[in-house]
């Protein structure tokens, strides 16, 4: 890796824009709050940004990736629960009840729009509502069912009402179409950047792009898009070439602050070329059809997200196989957060499908602590040696 670092010492200025965006974004949210703008907190990709922005509100992601707030959360939540759920909850109560305030945006939210994905999150939302008003959208858990789409559209209609009540603004079709168009542009930019990663020597490392995607629902869509344009421009003109066993990370989200496994993979010499993750392809892969009635078009696109809470989830397996081929993946690191039953159980079927395609899989289940770093390194080293 060290040789590669030297060769690719070219610093991309646009990457720094993402890294340094935090304080600016916090000030931006503070200012818009002063101007009367409502701030919506979200914790899942099934909640369409388009509706929130069409209503004149701003949005910020509340998925916790840091280990520090977990201790506070465990006063309320069981220890044997997914660290993302604990970290998110801990960050909110930390803002509401203590003076540390390390991630102030958790305390600036007027309404949380949550979703009925996994059991841990649903039950956590019941507690969360005590601190910040929380609206939970239901999701059809069998998305291929005949009535699933109509049901989801109804849930989006309810969300529309909730947002309109919150802001006092009406969501018009024109605004919705504008937001769809704008969100699609962002999706296309990300697709274009991922396209470059298909090359034999990609110009960007997985750990770099992950820090970008982690900002997707934190930054305002305009700022995120502007930075993406700069990143794509820079990648197109700068000569950077990375190599190493080509790895796909597939599984649970890696919320901002949670870089442990990808960093180990790339520090040990692997190169992550694609993330089948909520902080990866699932966040932007499909576009919303701009020619259809907007609510329906939004529903169709979002219901395609292949989360492991859905049944049956054949499309995730197909997506993984497709990506593995398109990105010429040597091996898959199946990443799960501890106690995430959906992704953990689904691992078996993913493993079977990959085996049939002759693609090796390394499974890593971990939390946000550093306690297992050395053990993970050993597994990753062995996996990379196996792929070479």
């Amino acid at each position, binding site marked *: 890796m060290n040789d590669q670092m030297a060769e690719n010492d070219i610093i991309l200025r646009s990457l720094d824009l993402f890294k340094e965006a935090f304080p600016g974004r916090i000030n931006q949210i503070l200012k818009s709050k002063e101007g009367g703008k409502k701030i919506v907190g979200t914790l899942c990709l099934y909640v369409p940004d388009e509706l929130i922005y069409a209503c004149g509100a701003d949005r910020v992601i509340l998925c916790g990736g840091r280990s520090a707030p977990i201790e506070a959360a465990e006063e309320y939540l069981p220890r044997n629960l997914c660290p993302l759920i604990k970290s998110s909850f801990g960050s909110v109560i930390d803002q509401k009840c203590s003076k540390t305030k390390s991630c102030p945006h958790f305390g600036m939210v007027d309404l949380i729009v949550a979703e009925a994905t996994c059991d841990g999150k649903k039950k956590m939302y019941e507690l969360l509502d005590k601190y910040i008003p929380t609206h939970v959208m239901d999701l059809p858990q069998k998305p291929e069912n005949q009535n699933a789409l109509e049901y989801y559209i109804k849930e989006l209609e309810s969300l529309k009402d909730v947002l309109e009540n919150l802001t006092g603004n009406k969501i018009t079709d024109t605004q919705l179409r504008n937001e769809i168009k704008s969100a699609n542009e962002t999706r296309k930019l990300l697709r274009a950047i991922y396209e470059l990663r298909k090359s034999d020597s990609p110009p960007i490392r997985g750990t770099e792009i992950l820090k970008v995607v982690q900002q997707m629902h934190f930054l305002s869509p305009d700022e995120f898009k502007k930075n993406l344009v700069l990143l794509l421009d820079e990648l197109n003109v700068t000569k950077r070439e990375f190599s190493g066993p080509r790895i796909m990370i597939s599984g649970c989200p890696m919320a901002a602050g949670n870089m442990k496994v990808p960093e180990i993979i790339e520090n040990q010499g692997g190169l992550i070329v694609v993330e089948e993750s909520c902080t990866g392809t699932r966040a932007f892969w499909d576009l919303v059809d701009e020619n259809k009635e907007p609510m329906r078009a939004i529903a169709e696109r979002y219901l395609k997200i292949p989360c492991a809470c859905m049944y049956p989830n054949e499309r995730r397996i197909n997506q993984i196989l497709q990506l593995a081929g398109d990105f010429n993946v040597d091996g898959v690191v199946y990443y799960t957060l501890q106690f995430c039953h959906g992704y953990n159980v689904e691992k078996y079927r993913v493993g079977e499908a990959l085996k049939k395609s002759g693609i*090796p899989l390394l499974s890593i*289940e971990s939390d946000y602590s550093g*306690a*297992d770093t*050395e*053990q993970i390194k*050993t*597994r990753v*080293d*062995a996996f990379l*040696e*196996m792929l070479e």
Partner: protein
Amino acid sequence: MISIGIDVGAATTKAVVLRDNEIAGYAIIPTGFDFRQAGEAAYREVLSNCGIGESEVGKILATGYGRSSIGFAEKTISEITAHARGVGYLIPAAHTIIDIGGQDSKVIITENGKVVDFLMNDRCAAGTGKFLEYTAKALEISLNELGTLALVSKHPAKISSMCTVFAESEVISLRAQKIKKEDIAAGLIESIILRTITMVKKLGIKHEVAFVGGVAKNPGVVKAFEKALDTKVQLPEEPQITGALGAALVV
């Protein structure tokens, strides 16, 4: 050409001297606190065991948990690859390798001496040498006695705790119930191999099966594996050195 492999494990550090592709000697020492010191000590000991001067050494490779602390090694490899190499050298017919060390247990599947799949236990000490070490203490016997004692058991006790700490208290309650010592010993061994057996089944057993690592020196564990897997388990003459040997074999 002389090459040396050093395997810095959580409990013991092993060094093997390979001279023209033949094992010339080895050393096994307790790791202690400092990985680097352990690596150096094992290195010096193996050199003196074999009567080799430092200038004759061609290359040094490190593996094991503390591999990155061995600054004088020219390369490091993971112990999984190392065991596969080492076992491939000693027992070429083996395609399933079970390694139970002081801190972890792993199962490796090989094809033509190369790793094709592997699993490692989770982060805690359940199902490892540490488990036996602690629970032997609860029986007031040594680790060696535990293995030989278990061989005479006719009715192994059921130990349901995988966790080392809980198993220790379970042993104490079994003692209170006047369960025979050998039956508790056998029960402990059955409980440690359960996890490893699950890993073997997950990967799919490929014959022959080799068993390496410090715990492979325990006859009770070997017997329990043979019974559970219904197959003969191959043991190298010195099961602790396959990692270090494998490192030395890396070109």
